[in-house]
């Protein structure tokens, strides 16, 4: 790998990628963490940091582990970073209803609070599956690959999580969405 100029160009590309994707990554991280804005930011920065060290792999031949879809790769990195963070911190878990400040006093703020409040009640893996399926619009198979589980397990997890969400915000949701 090459000259200083090539490296600068590659870094520029990385910054362009990071700028374009940071919003989407942050939103996913925000849902994944059940509305913990600080942790969400940490996870996104960590994900971008990992992307930075892997960035040269975009130039590789396909047999040498080229990254074909950096956006998808980043999403996988984010979800796995979140899951492993949670695995290690599980003892310190606080199923909190205390939500961090929400800046915009828009109409959808109530909806957001209701949603992340309910998400925060789900176990981490269930939450990851729900976010991937209904926010990221990933198929069951894609979701299974990202969380390293079987498709059947993802389906089971998903329906269990849906039932829980429904009992938590079933009526609320109808009302809030209709508004």
């Amino acid at each position, binding site marked *: *790998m090459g000259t*200083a100029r090539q*490296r600068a160009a590659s870094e520029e590309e990385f*910054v362009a990628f*990071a*700028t374009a994707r*940071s*919003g989407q*990554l*942050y*939103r996913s991280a*925000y*849902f994944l963490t059940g509305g913990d804005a600080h942790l969400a*930011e940490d996870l*996104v*920065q*960590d*994900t*971008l*940091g*990992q*992307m*930075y*060290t892997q960035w*040269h792999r975009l130039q590789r031949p396909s047999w040498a*582990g080229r990254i074909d879809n950096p956006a998808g*790769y980043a999403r*996988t*990195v984010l979800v*796995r*970073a979140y899951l*492993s*963070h949670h695995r*290690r*911190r599980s003892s310190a878990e606080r199923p909190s209803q205390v939500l961090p400040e*929400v*800046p*915009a006093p828009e109409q*959808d703020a109530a*909806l*957001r609070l209701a*949603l992340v409040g309910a998400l925060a009640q789900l176990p981490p893996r269930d939450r990851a599956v*729900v*976010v991937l399926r*209904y*926010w990221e619009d990933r198929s069951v198979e894609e979701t299974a690959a990202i969380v*390293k589980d079987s498709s059947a397990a993802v*389906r*089971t997890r998903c*329906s269990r999580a*849906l*039932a829980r969400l*429904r*009992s938590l915000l*079933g*009526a609320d*949701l*109808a009302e*809030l*969405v209709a508004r």
Partner: protein
Amino acid sequence: MSGRDGSVDGVFGDGSGEVSGGDEEFEVRLSTTFGRAAEGLGVAAAARLVDGGLEAGRRRRRRRRTVMLVGALTLAVAVGASALTLPSGLPGRASGALEAASSGAPAPLERGVTILLIGLEATTDAQNRPAPAELRRGELHAGAADVDVADTLVLVHIPAGGGTARQLSIPRDVLVDAPGGGAKVAIRQVYAQAEAAETTRSQGQGVSGAELRWRGREAGRAALIRSVQELAGVPVDHFAEVTMTGFYRAAQAVGTVPVCLNHAVDDELSGASLPAGRSELGPAQALAFVRQRHGVGDGSDLQRTRRAQAFLAGVLQKLRAGGVMADAGKLRALYDALKEDLVVDKGWNPVDFVRQVPAFAQGRAATSELPVQSEGAVLTAEPGKAKEILAGEGTSAAPAVNEVPCVD
């Protein structure tokens, strides 16, 4: 509980793909809710995330190189220990740069010895041959430069009597006086600047090829040692320089390395696919093991460092177990690998080397980074701090690593 108990029950046991109308409606509504509830991200917040990501990535890269450097030194020790059976003494080439830099060195620390480790990112080896193709293409050499860059700088202080060794990384962007005078430069540039000046001078005298390369690098080493002594306020007693190529070749020469995992890993992103428990890593898997980021602990630098330490512990155990030391062919390969890419000062005799280096190579070292003040992109060292840290005032030791530890 929602008002629709019947349909909630119906959701359980799903998996057949059969979804009732109510469930489907809920799924659609949930998707809509996600879309509407998603929070926008301001320009300032996005910029903060991008900057934070860049910083995290650079830190990560630095950390990995430090670990490789210490690994290469570990190999050198083992070879040094068995060098008593070989005619040539210490592996690597002997350099006179330390003597060149010793005039005007600061007063020594109370007791013990201070060693400077230089990790050099170089485009060619000491014989002026280009780095192996695998390296230039692969991750180890991701930031390959056109000139020799002192990419990793670590000061190690080993107290007399075998106490806790203290390791201090020097940020490569910290500002120091330029070797030829003039404006201040980042410390990583000192080596290349002095090398370029000496190369021009020697060329004028008709020196060429490997000899020219060596003279240039000797000047680079001397200038860098001077800068470090000035920056840290501590004299350098010995130094060792290793290129990334050297580490790579040495790792190849060792063969398989034992590691132990708490959980099986199967990470298609890095190519790491290993069972739980103990396994032997070949060169390719060893790289994947050290490189794997996803699903390793909490994904922090600390966790990755543990992986790397576990790998080094495996290397040590491998060497102690006699597999390499007893095998004359492997030993010779290792020795040759280091002969080309390791440089140590000529005053460092093999007996001292073997006595001094294992303490920190085995992980019995407190590690820290030199505190710096930053004004924008400009980093300056806090005066006196380095000496304080190396002398062990107010720092605590990291745990020792004695055998192959099981890691996440």
